[in-house]
């Protein structure tokens, strides 16, 4: 589905990724964990072409997207729930969803919104509320809903549980599991390593811009190094 081959990314002169290779196979949930500043967001954003990789290759369903502009990449079956959610604060819930399905036929949007409201009944009650006035959890649901609107085959999520109450976090993880059941491939960045690795088929550990470990989720959970560094011993 998604393959990164020896990807380097720079911010100006600063090198944030030093040759990262990652593979996400169709139908999987792949978790990427790592400390603050390890380069997790950078890796996800490099897939989206913003910033672009300075060398290496990124393949999406076999097509090379390394040098494609962001807008074009994001129209080819991939969508993102970015760090910090980034819902459009002045748009209503419904308008945010329409933005997610910007390139859909009208009928597809009606159906898509119905489906998002099924997943998140809370959003339905708030359809005409401005997104900026909603709680963090509701905004996160909206960000996921918006990403679903384009009917992606691959969904990228950057720390969807950040700053949320445990109950809401559990709900978000349930939804992510359901995405996989619906046939959507998931590439997930999480600080919440324990829950993420439990859920994930496979995981990668990123340390200062390099892949340190890769294994199945359960093996990583059992790995003493991972336990010490990311699971609180």
């Amino acid at each position, binding site marked *: 589905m998604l393959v990164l081959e020896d990807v380097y990314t720079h911010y100006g002169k600063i090198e944030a990724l030093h040759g990262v290779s990652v593979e996400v196979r169709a139908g999987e949930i792949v978790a990427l964990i790592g400390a603050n500043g390890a380069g997790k967001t950078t890796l996800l954003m490099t897939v*989206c072409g913003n910033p672009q990789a300075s060398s290496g290759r990124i393949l999406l369903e076999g097509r090379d997207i390394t040098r494609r502009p962001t807008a074009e990449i*994001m129209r080819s079956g991939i*969508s993102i729930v970015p760090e910090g959610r980034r819902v459009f604060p*002045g748009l209503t819930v419904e308008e945010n969803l329409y933005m*997610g399905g*910007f390139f859909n036929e009208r009928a597809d949007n009606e159906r898509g919104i119905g489906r998002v409201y099924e997943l998140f009944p809370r959003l339905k009650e708030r359809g005409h509320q401005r997104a900026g006035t909603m709680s963090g959890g509701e905004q996160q649901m909206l960000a996921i809903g918006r990403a679903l609107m384009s009917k992606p085959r691959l969904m990228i999520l950057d720390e969807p549980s950040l700053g949320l109450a445990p109950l809401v976090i559990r709900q978000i993880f349930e939804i992510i599991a359901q995405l996989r059941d619906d046939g959507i491939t998931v590439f997930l960045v999480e600080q919440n390593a324990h829950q993420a690795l439990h859920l994930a088929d496979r995981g990668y550990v990123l340390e200062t811009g390099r892949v340190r470990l890769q294994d199945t989720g359960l093996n990583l959970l059992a790995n003493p190094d991972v336990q010490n560094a990311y699971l609180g011993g």
Partner: protein
Amino acid sequence: MHDLLYFCQQLINGLTIGSAYALIAIGYTMVYGIIGMINFAHGEIYMIGAYTALIAITGLAALGIAWLPIVLLVALICAVIVSSSMGWAVERVAYRPVRGRHRLIPLISAIGMSIFLQNYVHLAQGSRNIGFPALIEGGLRLGGDERFQLSISWIQITIFITTFICMSALSLFISRSRLGRACRAVSQDLGMANLLGIDTNRIISATFVIGAALAAVAGLLLGMYYGSVDPLFGFVAGLKAFTAAVLGGIGSIPGAMLGGLILGIAEAMTSGYLSGEYKDVISFSLLILILLFRPTGLLGKPEVEKI
């Protein structure tokens, strides 16, 4: 009685000029809302709209076409097409290449574009002012007696109605249409819109084109109202409209409408009760006061500095 009539007369004059300011102010506010930059060439785009309309009117007269609706329609269409293309080209040439650089760079580029356009018109059309045919003459006289009557000219009425139609159409477009929604989304988070697959450059172009089209409408209307144009035609009007945009809250479309009307009325009252020479003083004093005490403008939202 006379006092009241006189006041109403100033109010009408103020609303006329104010609605034209509002039309021009939309261009400043939309572009600022979306890329956080003041389009200093916008006044020139308005001026070019007025010149284009004049050329079209002159051309039609030479062809012997004098039926008013046709003349106005053709002048309007020509002005809108030329100004919109100009707005589009200005963005491509002067703004897009320097977007995202240090904020002084686009500013300088914008001022350069403005000087270039002004001087181009100087060369092409001469620096003298050229008479603009009134086309819509006459008006209504109401109330009062032989000493003072309230007068509303047809051109004033045309300006109100046209502005009202344009503003309503714009509001509907922004609030209801798919592209309007995208404009709002891009102005709130351009990077995120890009991450949804939206070609944000096209949305930016669209805001320049919409702003320029409205400025062209104002160019035709004010050309007829003032009765002449010159290459500096856009300079003062541009500053005024910019003031209106800041007054209402730059980035806010209702703000631009409100700011335009308030500014127009303030100017008309100053001319009517003090002297015409003070009207520019008033508008720029308003600008300074608002920047000092409420930099976000009347309807603007407090937010981090964008430019």
